[in-house]
């Protein structure tokens, strides 16, 4: 499953952070997930809950998910628009020369730990 794979990578990144910062327990993990990252947040939360009880440093942690809206930039008329509402075609000038500038990320914003 895609979401479990992401949880495993997240845990590995957190393990490395814990080692660098000499942390023994992680209390809160804040993630930013882009609207068009393809991650199903409810599946992701389920995968996290399944995994964390088996991973001592994360045992008592809570997960906080923030959604990052998807934004597309139009190269033709130099404007920004909502990706989810309008897709690849610019709603102002109908150009297809458009690029996603935000919304496909999955970023660890911050953690609370001791």
């Amino acid at each position, binding site marked *: *499953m895609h979401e479990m*794979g992401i949880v495993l*990578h997240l845990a*590995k990144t957190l393990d490395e952070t814990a080692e660098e910062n000499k942390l023994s327990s992680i209390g809160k993990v804040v*993630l930013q997930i882009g609207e068009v990252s393809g991650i199903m947040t409810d599946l992701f939360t389920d995968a996290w809950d399944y995994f964390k009880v088996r991973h001592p440093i994360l045992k008592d942690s809570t997960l906080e998910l923030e959604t990052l809206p998807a934004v597309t930039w139009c190269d033709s008329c130099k404007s920004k628009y909502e990706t989810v509402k309008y897709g690849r075609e610019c709603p102002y000038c109908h150009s297809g020369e458009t690029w996603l500038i935000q919304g496909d990320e999955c970023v660890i914003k*911050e953690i609370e730990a001791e």
Partner: protein
Amino acid sequence: MKTITLNASVTASNERDADALRARMRACGTLLVNVMSSPGAGKTTLLSRLIRDLDGIRIAVMEADIESDVDAKRIEALGASSIQVHTSGMCHMDAGMTAAAFDELQQTLPCSQAIQLPSAQNLPCSQGRGTALKGGGGVKGGGWVRPDFDLIFLENVGNLICPAEYDTGAGLNLMLLSVPEGDDKPLKYPLMFQKSDALIVTKTDTLRYFNFDLSKCEARARALNPNLKIFPVSAKNGEGMDKLETWLKQQMDEFR
């Protein structure tokens, strides 16, 4: 409790693993090629053809699948080294799994012995078993001779989405798109086209049966990735294989 601001990609650890593996492959002088496509696009068939055509180049194949070892057996039947990797249900290979598979290859396991990856973490990323290795030159036929490879193909899990999101540590990323899948795929799976160095349009012998517009497909793919190399080929009748093989050899020379 203290708050630590990270702003790190969730896969930051994978990116570090990938860079480490790339450095290791460079030190070995082996070009690792990640081969991605949807299921059935023709990865194993193309690799089989390349193994037969690229005579004199020492090739190994790492077959990644969720289940089974049929693909590794097909490669082994051609006399090339192969190793089957099971991804434990995972929809992609990551750099840690790839490094573990490379370790196993270097130990010359009896061909196509499947290795089961317990999970994406805690993988044995250092040199695994401590068998004394003598000689070189990739002698085949069992035993424990250390193989040296010029080219290693990683046949990734059949999937156009997830493999594009994980750097495997490969020096070269290839994607296959087969004619029956349709020329609109660049529109639907942009990331895969953006992450690849080359697009291989496979099964061109079937072009007359499908509404596949090669020039439209090329234009859509290049709009996503202007530097993309495009090779239309048929592994069945050999059409276009020479151009692909010449390019691959160039990539190997440049890598060294």
